[in-house]
C-alpha cells in the first residue's frame, strides 16, 4: 500500500457536521407525535415512597401521564454483567419497579407531555411523600465494616500478593507510609444521558447515548422481554461518556416504558442535576501506600491498600491498585481493596477506572520516597524499571517507557530543576516541577465488521461499535481506505447501529485495537473476492494470474509483480454487472478473555501502554493559587493512527487529570446524603483559562503483537499519572504535601 493514510493527521471526517449542528444525538431525532419525559428523583437517601399524588400534574392539558412504580410494566432481571454484552448499572434496582429508595436522586417517576416545558412543569407538580429510614452516608465511620471482595469488574482480581510485603517492609532501610484520599468525581459528559424510544406494534426503536450499542441493545431486549430482532438501537453520535455510558442507566429502559404507557415516541434526557445521581460516578477512595526500598532506591516492598465505596444495589469496585501490581519491579507486593456500601448512587468506570486514582496515590508515594532517598524521581523509577510484567511474569508486548522519561525530561527542562523544594522562583511565583508515570492496559476484544464495495467505486463499512467523540469514525475511515486503497472521500464508515455486526464496546480503551483489525480484515476479504473474480474473467487484464499475487492499489486491483497490470474496482464490477461486493470478517482475539483459544502472541505477553507526565506549576506564595504553566506528555501507545485525534485524546485525559488534581469534587450533604455540588457551576472542571501550554509527543512504534494495525487504545492513559505529576510539582514548588484531592488553596495555606 503506497501513501498510507493511516497515521496521517487528517481532520475528523465528521468535524464539519458536528460544528454545524448536523450530527444527530440521541435526543435530536424529530418524530411525529414525539412526547417528552422529565424524570422525577427521590429526595431522601433511604426508605419508601409513602404516596405519589399525580392529580395536579395530570390536569394540565398536554400531559399524557406520570409513570411510576404504580403503573409501570414489569421488567425482566437481566443476566450477565459484561458491558460489551449489556450491563444494567444497578442490577438490584431495576427502575420504577417498587416503592423502595436506596439513594437520594434515584429515578422514581417520569412526567410525560407534548412539550418539554409542560413535562417539566408537570414533574414539579407531582407530590411525593416518603417514609425515610436511617441511611449509611459516609465511608469513614463505616470503614471497619468494609468487605474484601475477591474480584471486580471482568473478574479482575482485587486482592493480589507476591512475596512477603509486610516482612520486607519491616526490614527495609528506607520506608514511607502515607494515606491518599480522593473524593467522588462525576464524568459530566457534555451530552447528558438521553434516549428516544418509539414502539411500532411490538417493535422498538431506540436512539440512545451509549458506549455500548450492542450491549444496550441486548440489554433492552432482555429487560423488556423482547426478541432481539424486535429491537433496534442506534447511537450515531455521542457527546462523550468517559465511562458513564458504558453501563445502562434508567433513562434508556424508562424511555421505552414511558413510550409504551402513552403510546407515543418519548424522548428522555437527564437534567444536569440528575447526572450527579442516576448516571454513575467514580467512587471516593482512601488509599494507603507503603513503600520500602534499599538506600539505592531499589524497591523491596509495595503495599497498596484501598477502601472504596459502592451502593446497596450493585457492586462496582474502583480498582485503585491494579496498576501497582505491574508498574515496578519489586519482589514483595500486597494490593488489597475493601468496599463499604453507602446510600449513594452506584459508581461505575470513569476514565481509567483504578489507574487514574491509583496512579495518583502510587506516583505521589514514589515522589515521597524519592525525597526521602534524596534521589531524582526519574532515577528512582529507572532503578525499578520493570522489563517484564512482575505479576504475570511475562514479557511486555512493547515497552519504550525509558524513552518517554528521557524525552519528557528534555521537553520540560528537568535538568534546570533544583532538587530542593520551595527553592525556585519566577518573579513572585514559586516554581515547581513534577513528574509521574502513566500506564494503562492495552485491551483488545472480538469484533466483526462488514466491508462493502459498490460498483461506483465507493465503499462502506458497517460495524456495531460507536464513536463516543474520540474520532473512531475518522481512524476507521483511514484504516479502511488503506486496506481498499481508496481515497478517504470514497469510504463511508457507518457505526452505532444494532443492525450492524457486533463490534467492541467503548470501554477499556479497546475500540481502535479491536475494531480496526476487523475492518481491515473485511476490507482485505473484499479485495480477495475481487481478485478471485478478476483472474477468472477473460475480460480482465489480470485473467489467469494467481489471485494471491494481486493487491489493492489506487482504487483498483493490480498485479504486485507488474504494478501497471490491473484495473479499477469500477471497471471490474461494471463489466461483471455487479452492484456490490461485500465481506464480513470477525477477528476473535481478546486480551481479556480466558487465554485458551487465543493466539500465542496474546497468551505469551502482557499488553500495556506507557507514558511519562511532566508538569511545571507556578504557585502564588501568599494566596496559593496554582497555575499549571506547562504540561508535557510522552506516550508509548503503539502506532499513532491519527496525530490529531491522538493528541486530542491525550490532552483531554490530561485536562481530566488536572481537574481531578486541582478542583473537581462532588460533595454530599453530611446530614442528607444529597449531592450539593450538582451542576457545572459548583462541580468545577478546568476552563480554557486554566490550561497550560501542552507538549504532547508519541514514541509511535507499532505494537505488532496486539494486532496487525499496531495501535493500542489511548482514551484513558492521558489521565493516568497527571494528578500525581501536578501534586508532585506543587510539593516541589511549595514544600507542602497535600494528600487529599483536590488540592484547593486552603489546603496549601498555613
Amino acid at each position, binding site marked *: 500500500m503506497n501513501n498510507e493514510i493511516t497515521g496521517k493527521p487528517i481532520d475528523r471526517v465528521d468535524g464539519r457536521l458536528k460544528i454545524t449542528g448536523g450530527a444527530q444525538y440521541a435526543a435530536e431525532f424529530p418524530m411525529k407525535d414525539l412526547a417528552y419525559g422529565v424524570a422525577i428523583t427521590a429526595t431522601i437517601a433511604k426508605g419508601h415512597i409513602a404516596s405519589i399524588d399525580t392529580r395536579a400534574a395530570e390536569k394540565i392539558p398536554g400531559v399524557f401521564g406520570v409513570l411510576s412504580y404504580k403503573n409501570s410494566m414489569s421488567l425482566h432481571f437481566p443476566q450477565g454483567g459484561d458491558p460489551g454484552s449489556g450491563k444494567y448499572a444497578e442490577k438490584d434496582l431495576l427502575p420504577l419497579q417498587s416503592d423502595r429508595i436506596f439513594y437520594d436522586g434515584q429515578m422514581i417517576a417520569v412526567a410525560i407531555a407534548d412539550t418539554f*416545558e409542560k413535562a417539566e412543569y408537570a414533574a414539579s407538580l407531582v407530590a411525593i411523600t416518603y417514609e425515610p429510614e436511617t441511611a449509611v452516608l459516609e465511608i469513614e465511620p463505616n470503614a471497619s465494616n468494609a468487605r474484601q471482595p475477591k474480584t471486580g469488574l471482568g473478574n479482575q482480581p482485587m486482592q493480589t500478593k507476591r512475596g512477603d510485603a509486610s516482612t520486607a517492609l519491616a526490614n527495609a532501610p528506607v520506608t514511607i507510609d502515607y494515606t491518599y484520599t480522593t473524593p467522588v468525581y462525576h464524568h459530566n459528559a457534555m451530552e447528558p444521558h438521553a434516549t428516544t424510544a418509539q414502539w411500532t406494534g411490538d417493535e422498538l426503536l431506540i436512539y440512545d447515548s451509549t458506549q455500548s450499542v450492542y450491549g444496550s441493545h441486548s440489554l433492552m431486549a432482555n429487560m423488556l422481554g423482547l426478541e432481539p430482532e424486535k429491537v433496534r438501537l442506534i447511537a450515531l453520535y455521542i457527546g462523550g461518556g468517559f465511562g458513564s455510558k458504558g453501563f445502562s442507566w434508567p433513562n434508556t429502559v424508562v424511555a421505552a416504558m414511558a413510550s409504551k404507557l402513552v403510546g407515543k415516541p418519548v424522548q428522555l434526557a437527564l437534567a444536569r442535576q440528575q447526572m450527579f445521581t442516576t448516571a454513575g460516578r467514580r467512587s471516593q477512595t482512601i488509599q494507603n501506600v507503603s513503600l520500602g526500598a534499599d538506600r539505592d532506591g531499589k524497591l523491596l516492598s509495595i503495599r497498596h491498600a484501598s477502601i472504596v465505596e459502592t451502593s446497596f444495589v450493585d457492586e462496582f469496585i474502583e480498582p485503585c491498585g491494579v496498576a501497582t501490581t505491574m508498574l515496578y519491579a519489586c519482589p514483595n507486593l500486597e494490593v488489597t481493596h475493601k468496599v463499604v456500601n453507602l446510600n449513594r448512587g452506584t459508581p461505575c468506570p470513569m476514565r481509567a477506572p483504578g489507574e487514574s486514582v491509583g496512579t495518583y496515590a502510587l506516583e505521589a508515594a514514589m515522589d515521597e520516597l524519592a525525597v526521602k532517598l534524596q534521589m531524582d524521581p526519574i532515577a528512582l523509577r529507572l532503578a525499578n524499571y520493570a522489563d517484564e510484567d512482575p505479576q504475570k511474569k511475562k514479557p511486555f508486548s512493547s515497552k519504550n517507557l525509558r524513552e518517554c522519561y528521557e524525552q519528557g525530561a528534555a521537553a520540560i527542562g528537568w535538568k534546570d530543576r533544583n532538587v530542593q523544594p520551595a527553592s525556585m522562583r519566577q518573579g513572585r511565583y514559586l516554581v515547581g516541577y513534577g513528574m509521574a508515570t502513566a500506564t494503562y492496559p492495552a485491551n483488545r476484544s472480538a469484533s466483526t465488521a462488514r466491508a462493502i464495495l459498490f460498483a461506483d467505486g465507493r465503499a462502506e463499512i458497517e460495524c456495531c461499535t460507536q464513536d463516543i467523540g474520540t474520532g473512531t469514525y475518522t481512524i476507521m475511515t483511514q484504516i479502511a481506505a488503506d486496506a481498499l486503497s481508496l481515497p478517504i472521500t470514497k469510504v463511508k464508515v457507518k457505526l452505532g447501529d444494532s443492525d450492524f455486526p457486533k463490534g467492541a464496546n467503548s470501554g477499556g480503551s479497546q475500540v481502535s485495537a479491536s475494531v480496526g483489525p476487523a475492518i481491515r480484515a473485511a476490507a482485505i476479504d473484499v479485495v480477495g473476492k475481487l481478485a478471485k473474480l478478476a483472474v477468472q474473467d477473460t475480460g480482465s487484464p489480470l485473467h489467469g494470474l494467481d489471485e494471491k499475487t494481486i493487491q489493492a492499489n489506487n482504487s483498483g486491483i493490480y498485479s504486485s509483480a507488474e504494478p501497471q497490470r490491473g484495473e479499477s474496482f469500477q471497471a471490474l464490477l461494471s463489466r461483471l454487472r455487479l452492484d456490490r461486493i461485500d465481506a464480513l470478517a470477525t477477528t476473535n482475539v481478546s486480551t481479556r478473555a480466558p487465554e485458551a483459544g487465543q493466539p500465542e502472541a496474546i497468551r505469551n505477553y502482557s499488553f500495556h501502554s506507557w507514558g511519562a507526565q511532566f508538569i511545571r506549576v507556578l504557585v502564588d506564595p501568599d494566596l496559593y493559587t496554582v497555575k499549571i504553566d506547562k504540561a508535557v506528555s510522552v506516550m508509548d501507545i503503539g502506532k499513532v493512527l491519527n496525530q490529531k485525534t491522538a493528541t486530542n485524546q491525550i490532552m483531554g485525559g490530561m485536562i481530566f487529570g488536572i481537574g481531578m488534581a486541582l478542583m473537581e469534587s462532588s460533595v454530599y450533604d453530611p446530614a442528607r446524603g444529597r449531592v450539593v*455540588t450538582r*451542576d457545572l457551576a459548583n462541580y468545577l472542571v478546568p*476552563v480554557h483559562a486554566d490550561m497550560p501550554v501542552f507538549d504532547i509527543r508519541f514514541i509511535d512504534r507499532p505494537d505488532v503483537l496486539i494486532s496487525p494495525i499496531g495501535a493500542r487504545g489511548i482514551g484513558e492513559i492521558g489521565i493516568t499519572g497527571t494528578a500525581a505529576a501536578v501534586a508532585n510539582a506543587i510539593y516541589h514548588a511549595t514544600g507542602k504535601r497535600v494528600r487529599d484531592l483536590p488540592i484547593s488553596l486552603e489546603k496549601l495555606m498555613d
Partner: protein
Amino acid sequence: MYPFTLIRPESPAAAIKNATKGTKFIAGGTNLVDLMKLDIETPTALVDINGLEAFNTIETLPDGRIRVGALVKNSALAWHSEIARRFPLLSQALLSGASPQLRNMATTGGNMLQRTRCYYFYDPAFPCNKRVPGSGCPAIDGYNRNHAVLGTSEHCIASHPSDMCVALAAIDPRVMLHGPRGERSIAFAELHRLPGSTPHLENTLLPGELITAIELPSLPFAVHSHYLKVRDRASYEFALASAAVALDIQGGTIRAARIALGGVGTKPWRSKAAEKTLVGAAAGDATYKIAADAALNGAIPHKHNAFKIELAKRTLVRTLNIVGGNA
C-alpha cells in the same frame, strides 16, 4: 419551569404599571432564568424591559459624574473607555465575573440584584430561609465552603456573589429608582440588606420599583484602584475572596481610601473600619496588614469556610500593595 406570561412594555411607565404582585422584571435574565428553571423563582408574568432604550446609555455629566443606564450590558460597561480610565476597579471587577457570553447578556441593574449561589438555596429539595422563610438553614451545619464570614446571621450565611457590586460598594454610586410612587435615589450602600432574621428580603426596593440607572461620583482618586479576585479556577467562577481598593496617596501618606470585599460578605462588603485605619497612615505593608485585620474583624467562620478570613486578608493586602505600591 412554571408557566408565565411575557409582557413587553414600551415605556418605563408601562413597565412599572405592569409590575404587580407575582411579576418580575427581566433584563439579561442570566440569573433569573436559571432560577425559574429550578422553580426557585416562579413569577406569573415577566415584564421584559429590554426594549426601554433610554436605560441603555452611558453618559458623562457636566460635573464629572457618570450615569450608567440599568440596561447597559456588563461587557459594554467594562470596556467603556471612560470607565476603564477613571474606574479601573469597576472595569476589572466586571471582566472577572462570569464568562464573555454571560457578560454580553447581563445588565448593570440585574447584576446588582443577582441572588446568592448558596448550594442549598439553589436546590428546592432543601429547606432555606431565603427561599422559604422559617424553613431553616442547612448550610450552617452542612457544606459551607462558598459561604460568607461577614454579615451572617443565625438564619443565613449565604454570600453575595457579584463582582461588580464589590467595586460599586467601594465607589458608592447613587442608585436611581422609578416606582409606582415616582422617582427617587438611594446610596448604593443602602441597596442591599443584611440577612438578619429576614434573609428572604435582600434589598430595599419598594414593590414594583425599577432600577433605572446608577450615577458614579467623580471620585478622582479612583484612577488609582484595582479589583483582585481569588477563586478555584481562572475563569467562570465566583470569588472565594476578592477586594476592590482605591487609594489617594500623597507623599507616601494615604489621604483617602475605599475598600470593599467580595466572596466573604452576605452583601457587597464595604469596610469603613479598614478605610479608617488607612487614612493618615504611611502607605506600606505594615499599614495594609492593619487594615486587613480591621476589615475582617468580627468575621465568623463555619466548618468549611474558615480559610476565607485569612485568604480575604491576604487578598486585601495584595490589592492594597498593587494600588499603593510595593507589589
